[in-house]
């Protein structure tokens, strides 16, 4: 292996990228755009759920009950309908996600000390959201029940507030969230996006870089010359590693400033791991580009091949521990999970070498394997 020839290939690549302004701006803009769109867009917080109410009772009590929903920041009140049949079409048109039906005789029964049934109708298509909505409804409902109780105890028994609380809720919860104190999904998904975006963007960029040469025919210069396979692959991949590393730093800065994520860990570890991680993702792109012939195929395969495992099998959406055995194994085979451990560990958990060292090592191993397979599979004398 000769450094001068690696340098020749790398410099040519840099010049080409630098002069092709469209490609250049894509290389730097796309990761930033992806970070903004996915960081804000993939937020798991469920708020402002549009709903309508059907109040058959229209009494003081029913209005009081309804107002608890209207005033909540989790719900967005879209008005009153006279009948359920008028509300359901709105649900079908996706304009609302939830209908609150208050039966006739709501106040009458309550005052008579009887049970009343209120019917929340929830759009069940988005299972996760639906469950969250049900949770909100239950707690608003429970709160209303407690208030009724409080009023009754005060009026009938003349108890003071403290005694009433001790009677009604003898055990209270004082929850504290670790690592993400405000339970802001921006903190976790926002920083997690560094892992996802830096898996996808470098892979696609690298894959296009090589396949472009195959499509134009300039790859023949490499085939026909005396440059060795490893010299070509390394020279070709290095510029993309550098570009991607710069991008990763920009994204990290965005996480700190735009999403307000704190950084509590070891910066040196984070930088070393990040460099290894972009070596992995560019390696994935290189490997794909060696196997396919057209830019369209290269873009599609790397896009899907990195996005789905990057989202589903990295622990970003579902913790790796609670995955099925198959998915769990895949997660361990891909670099995404290790990088997510490092990102969250460094930003949110304040971990350093003792906790994350193994992850860094595994990333290094991944990079070596990916580059190695690329060099091994690259052919200078092709079949077709």
């Amino acid at each position, binding site marked *: 292996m000769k450094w*001068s020839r690696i340098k020749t290939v790398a410099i*040519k690549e840099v010049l*080409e990228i630098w002069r092709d302004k469209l490609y250049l701006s894509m290389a730097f803009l796309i990761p930033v755009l992806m970070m903004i769109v996915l960081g804000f867009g993939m937020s798991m917080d469920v708020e402002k759920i549009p709903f309508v109410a059907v109040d058959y009772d229209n009494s003081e009590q029913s209005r009081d009950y309804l107002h608890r929903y209207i005033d909540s920041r989790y719900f967005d009140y879209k008005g009153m309908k006279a009948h359920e049949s008028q509300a359901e079409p709105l649900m079908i048109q996706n304009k609302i996600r939830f209908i609150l039906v208050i039966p006739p005789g709501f106040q009458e029964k309550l005052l008579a000390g009887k049970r009343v049934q209120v019917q929340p109708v929830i759009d069940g298509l988005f299972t996760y959201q639906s469950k969250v909505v049900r949770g909100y409804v239950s707690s608003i409902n429970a709160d209303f029940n407690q208030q009724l109780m409080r009023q009754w105890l005060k009026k009938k028994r003349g108890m003071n507030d403290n005694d009433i609380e001790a009677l009604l809720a003898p055990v209270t919860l004082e929850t504290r969230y670790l690592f993400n104190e405000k339970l802001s999904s921006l903190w976790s998904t926002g920083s997690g996006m560094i892992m996802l975006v830096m898996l996808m963007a470098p892979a696609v960029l690298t894959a296009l870089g090589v396949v472009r040469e195959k499509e134009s025919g300039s790859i*023949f210069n490499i085939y026909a*010359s*005396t440059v060795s396979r490893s010299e070509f692959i390394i020279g070709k991949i290095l510029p993309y590693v550098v570009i991607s590393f710069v991008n990763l730093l920009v994204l990290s800065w965005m996480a700190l400033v735009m999403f307000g994520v704190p950084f509590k860990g070891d910066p040196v570890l984070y930088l070393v791991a990040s460099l290894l991680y972009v070596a992995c993702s560019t390696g994935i792109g290189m490997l794909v580009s060696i196997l396919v012939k057209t830019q369209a195929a290269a873009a599609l395969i790397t896009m899907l091949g990195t996005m789905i495992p990057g989202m589903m099998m990295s622990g970003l959406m579902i913790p790796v521990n609670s995955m099925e055995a198959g998915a769990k194994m895949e997660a361990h085979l891909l670099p995404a999970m290790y990088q997510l451990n490092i990102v969250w560990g460094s930003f949110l958990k304040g971990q350093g070498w003792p906790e994350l060292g193994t992850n860094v090592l595994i990333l290094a191993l991944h990079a070596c394997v990916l580059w190695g397979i690329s060099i091994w599979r690259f052919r*200078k*004398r092709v*079949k077709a």
Partner: protein
Amino acid sequence: MSPVIEVKQLSKCYKKQPAVKSIDLTVKSGEIYGLIGPDGAGKSSVMQILAGVLSYESGEVKVFDHILDSEMSAEAVKSRIGFMPQGLGLNLYPELSIEENINFFADLRDVPVAEREARKLQLMDMTQLTAFRDRPMKNLSGGMKQKLGLVCTLIHKPELVILDEPTTGVDPVSRRDFWEILSYLVRHEHMTALVSTSYMDEAERFQNLSFFYEGSVLAQGEPDSILDSVEGWVAECDCEEGLNIIGELQSKFSQAELIGKTMRIVAYDVTQEWFEGELLGLLQQHGVSKTVEIRPIELEDAFIGMLHRWEKQKAGDGEFDFGQQDNAVNHFDESPEFDRNAVMIEANELSRHFGDFVAVDEVSFNVRAGEVFGLLGANGAGKSTAIKMLTGLLKPTHGFGQISQSSLERSGREIKQKIGYMSQSFSLYEDLTVHENLKLYGQIYGVPKSRLKQRIHWALQMGSLQDEIDTLAGSLPMGLRQRLALGCALLHEPKVLFLDEPTSGVDPLGRLQFWEILVALAKLKGVAILITTHYMSEAEHCDQLALMQAGKVVANGSPISLREHIADELGMVLSIKVDYPYQALDVLRKNGFEQVSLFGRRIHLFSLVPDRILNQIKKVLSSHEIEIHDTRKMLPSLEDVFIHFIETHAEELPDASPSRVAS
């Protein structure tokens, strides 16, 4: 000395589709060896195998006495080979400047910096690229791209260069320069060159050649011996009644075509006496008593003759006869009267600018009913832009055009009904069958239902596509695909037909058949045809020609008048076959014959007084003990014509340097 390349029984398949069928090839040191044949004949596969970048199934391939049978063994010879793949400048890096491109190729091959600089200067000087060394490759003209490609391939002083179609789509001047440079380097650096081309008229440039067709080699050897191996005769005759008898001639002889008022008849594998007797007899029957000039065929016709033989063998026991099997003229029974003086296409100082770049610069010409008008030029000369303006697809910046008296500016829709257009890519729907394609195009052009059935039947007949009605267009061979596309463009019976490089990628026999149809269309139905091509040999079929260079028309006229004009101005072409062509060339240049150029083993030069010059040359050569084998006098070719016009035109321009982006 053992040969540089030695190939035995080489075969190559792509997914079970054979591309090269058991060929043999031997290339000796120091020669320019040609692989000639149409697209898809297997030339590129052979070249890639020899450059060590493509694997093969069976056979033995030796380059510099190394057997190339694995990636490892191929690596061993790569330092001694320069390979330029197909596609003009496609292997270069568009964003890099000329110099950066050259440096990349040199550094990739470990050329020491001092040596690199010296070699670079020498090669840039020779190719006249020095002045443009900082210009990005994407802004070079086709000819300059080709030269840069050559420089990059030669920068490490290879002993063997493999050049895949280096002259395709390049203007005639650049082509000539290319051959000059190559033959200079082969002479002075003891290089061996393997060059492929799909232009049959370049065959004379090679010392030895192999003629490829459908993966097989049909002929091998020196151009002259190939010519000798095919017996055939050409007759030419001017006559007004050509149209009435051409059909009969076509069924009797291998080839018969009408070029303007001249009939050209070719017969293969017959004696001269038989040919002369039969032809004159037939002409007399029709009361034609014109003088007929009969001469032996030239190399291009010899190739076609070989293809005839090959097809005959494939078809079986001599049943196949090209002329009889397909007779385009017979499908044009209805011959409406038309006014031969009606101007159907008029271009009046048409110009088109793209920003600062002038793609078409004040181009004017007329095409009359029944005329075939050829627009010639290299890639990027402005041909397609001109056609786009005349078909109403692009607005001219200045000037105006008319299609059969309707102005392009005012009557867009009306014009679209009058014209047929066939593009380079044929624009067929590959997943539809032949019949479905025709039906779809008929409906797009608004042919009435009652008429469509009849028109489709006509188109199938015309293109001899009757047996392929239910074949997918994508699986047709190129020749048939081309005729299907033509049929689609003619369904609505347009009076004006535009053809944009319709023959690219089609084999010579298919091209010939296509031209027969075009000529019949023009002469019998009065269709005005505007066709663009970069095959000079095709230009001979046109009634009128215009050559475009850098957006301007630099010459126009009929093919024969252009050639005679040059003959008057520069003289005839003297072609001399000698023992030692390289030596002879140097000797002649030293003795004041500076305009000599090398064509294989022959030396060409222009002369107004050929006999006197020939005597002088004989004297000079015999004093150096170089023997002359034979001499010929020829009318200048169209290629010569265009080189002359481009050069005289370039002198008039203040800045002759092309600084342009291909449109």
